[in-house]
């Protein structure tokens, strides 16, 4: 398959160069060529004017190219120190835990990246894991740092820390390639921007002269941009309540409080936004709303009826769709095919189910419709879903859940990893659902997204609803204060 077709990219010392493009535009393939995982069929790579052959990750490291992947390449069971020193020629021959931790501490100090050398990577947050990845790359003397959607998994405060580190790196005369879908972010930090479309580089421009709309046009190309989402009128106060939480509390297995006295009403025809810094109970909230988590205390009501023993199946059959935050682990079976994953929510009802049997032809037809609705260009629906890019996985989950969401759609960070076009499509679909009389719960960290699309915004802090206000005329600053618990 042709993923890259005559791409030109020039990288200057002391610049942050953003790479934009839709899902599947060839950005990741290009970076895999730069880091030696793939070999180009044509063309060359020159560093400091000299043509270099990069025939593997080790050669890329020698050439000063370091990559931080979207899915971190860390060993979760091992410590930070062990991960930093893995596969590094400068790791001392005698590498006991003590030696490695001391070296890691001094490296962390030198590059200004705060990490805990003795901590197990599995216990770290996404932002901390990313710092370990960056430290690992910088320790190997990288002068070109490539980051693939580095902010997709980060909380806003962590993004600021990351950008500070990147500016410091640029300040020392190095170059950064930043792959991203977030135009605002790109305009904030990048010096120059290259846009890719269908495997080609279509334009390179200075960030200073660019705007969101000019970039969006370049990314989407000649195809008409999706119609801007039309915010609905919202729900009147007397609209029926579809889903309600009354004083819900939940703890995890270790007894740590996840939710604490949460009361919420999702009305027909509204988009209810949930704001808050990640890790303040969003996951538990979305799980309680969809029956995946039984609260320890309080009640869950479906159209005014208390659900005695909530379970995911009851909720799915009642028409509650769920786009969970961790799509690969919670929403998809990675080794099953695209088609099988597509029908995962509907296999147990007609036309796919026939008594105890399963009608493969009906399943195939439903799968094709879902794949089409997701706008996926999947030639063979039998490929394992893990082979799709993160953005395409997200599109598939969103399309599948939209189909079953006849009452409420609960969407946690649904735009993560999506390109501009797909984000607009998804938001439009949410408004359509709301216009049809469904309730939509939109969990997001991006205030802009919530202010633009939600009718009401609830702020989640430390497992409690810190505030609930209408989105129209809401003050971002006040929301920010609520999010930080003030």
């Amino acid at each position: 398959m042709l993923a890259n077709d005559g791409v030109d990219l020039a990288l200057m010392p002391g610049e942050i160069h953003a790479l934009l493009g839709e899902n599947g535009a060839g950005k990741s393939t290009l970076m895999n060529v730069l880091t030696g995982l793939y070999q180009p069929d044509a063309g060359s790579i020159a560093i400091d004017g000299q043509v270099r052959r990069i025939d593997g990750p080790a050669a890329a490291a020698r050439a000063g190219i370091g990559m931080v992947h979207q899915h971190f390449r860390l060993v979760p069971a091992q410590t930070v120190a062990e991960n930093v020193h893995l596969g590094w020629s400068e790791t001392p021959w005698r590498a006991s835990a003590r030696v490695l931790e001391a070296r890691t501490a001094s490296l962390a100090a030198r590059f200004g990246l705060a990490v805990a050398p003795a901590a197990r990577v599995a216990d770290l947050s996404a932002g901390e894991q990313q710092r370990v990845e960056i430290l690992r790359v910088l320790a190997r003397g990288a002068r070109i740092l490539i980051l693939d959607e580095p902010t997709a998994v980060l909380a806003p405060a962590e993004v600021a820390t990351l950008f500070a580190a990147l500016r410091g790196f640029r300040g020392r005369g190095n170059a950064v390639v930043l792959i991203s879908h977030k135009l605002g972010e790109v305009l904030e930090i990048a010096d120059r921007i290259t846009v890719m479309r269908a495997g080609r580089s279509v334009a390179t421009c200075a960030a200073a002269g660019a705007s969101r709309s000019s970039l969006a046009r370049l990314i989407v190309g000649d195809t008409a941009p999706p119609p801007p989402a039309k915010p609905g009128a919202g729900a009147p106060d007397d609209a029926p309540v579809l889903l309600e939480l009354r004083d819900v509390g939940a703890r995890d297995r270790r007894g740590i409080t996840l939710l604490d006295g949460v009361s919420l009403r999702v009305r027909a025809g509204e988009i209810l936004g949930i704001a808050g810094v990640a890790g303040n109970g969003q996951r538990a909230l979305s799980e309680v709303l969809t029956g995946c988590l039984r609260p320890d205390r309080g009640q869950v009501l479906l159209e005014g009826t208390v659900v005695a023993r909530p379970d995911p199946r009851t909720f799915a059959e009642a028409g509650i769709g769920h786009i969970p935050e961790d799509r690969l682990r919670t929403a998809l079976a990675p080794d099953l095919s695209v088609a099988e994953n597509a029908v995962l929510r509907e296999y147990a009802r007609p036309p796919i189910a026939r008594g105890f049997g399963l009608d493969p032809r009906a399943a195939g037809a439903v799968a094709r419709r879902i794949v089409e609705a997701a706008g996926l260009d999947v030639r063979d629906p039998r490929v394992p879903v893990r082979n799709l890019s993160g953005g395409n996985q997200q599109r598939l989950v969103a399309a599948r859940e939209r189909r079953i969401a006849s009452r409420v759609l609960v969407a946690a960070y649904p735009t993560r990893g999506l390109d501009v076009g797909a984000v607009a499509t998804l938001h439009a679909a949410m408004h359509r659902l709301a216009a049809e009389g469904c309730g939509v719960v939109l969990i997001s960290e991006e205030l802009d997204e919530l202010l633009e699309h939600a009718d009401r915004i609830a702020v989640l802090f430390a497992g409690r609803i810190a505030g609930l206000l209408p989105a129209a005329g809401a003050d971002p600053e006040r929301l920010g204060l609520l999010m930080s618990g003030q």
Partner: protein
Amino acid sequence: MSMLSSLLGNAVLSGAVLALAGQGELLAERVGVLNLGVEGLLALGGVTAIATVAAGHDPLLGLLAAVGVGAAVGCLFAAATVLARASQVLCGIALTTGGLGLAATLGRPYAGQPAAATFQPIDIPLLDRLPVLGPALFHQSAPVYVAFLVLPLALQLLLFHTRHGLVLRAIGENPAACDAAGIPVVALRFAYVALGAAIAAAAGADLTLAFVPSWSDGVTAGRGWIAVALVIFAGYRPWRIAVGAFLFGLVNALGYLAQARDWGVAPAFLSMLPYLATILFMVLPALSARSRPATTAPAALGLPYYRDQR
């Protein structure tokens, strides 16, 4: 020799086979390859050693021949599981059944006869004069010292105190991350699977040249399977494998002692003890609270590595 001393001595002697086989299996599993062929490797190593000493009358030669055969068979197993990425479970079972059958056929001329040469006990100066412990622990053959001291110490240092060991452990946890870091995943997996098989075959030589010491069909008696269980029980740590092997040896030795002293327990029950102990050792840790993360299996254990997979 006192009763206690002979009990401990027998425990160490019979535990050494498990300790050696377990350390070999540990190497393969640490790089992410489950080798269920230990039983077959024990049999092949044992019969190779017997046949070699019948011709050459030197136990060391017998051991080296067993190591050579084990390495060669290990290369075959690694070619199938690491290079061709065949199912590790199926290949392991094939190695066990094939190894047992081949060893039975090759060993027919030697069956039932005492080994032509055996490993003789070596006294450790001073330590062998300790009361009870001296004759039990420090009047043993060379393979026993290797099984309980040299190999655990060497593997502990290698795995947890060297750069190379860090790489090996990481390959068993996340081969994709290692590949991205420029580590030759396939070559290292291949090498350590072969090395592990060689050590397992050496355990077979220890069985027929020091412990029993003779060859008969079925002499391995499921020790290879116990070794596989032992690695899990020991949480993939070299020292704990040595300790676990001693515990199993102790159960074994208790059976012998009861038989020799005629404690009035049915002999069938006594010979059952090691296998009962295996089941107990496997079930008890699983029942007790939660297993600590440090003792869980390597994350990539049993999974063939494909570069193209995300």
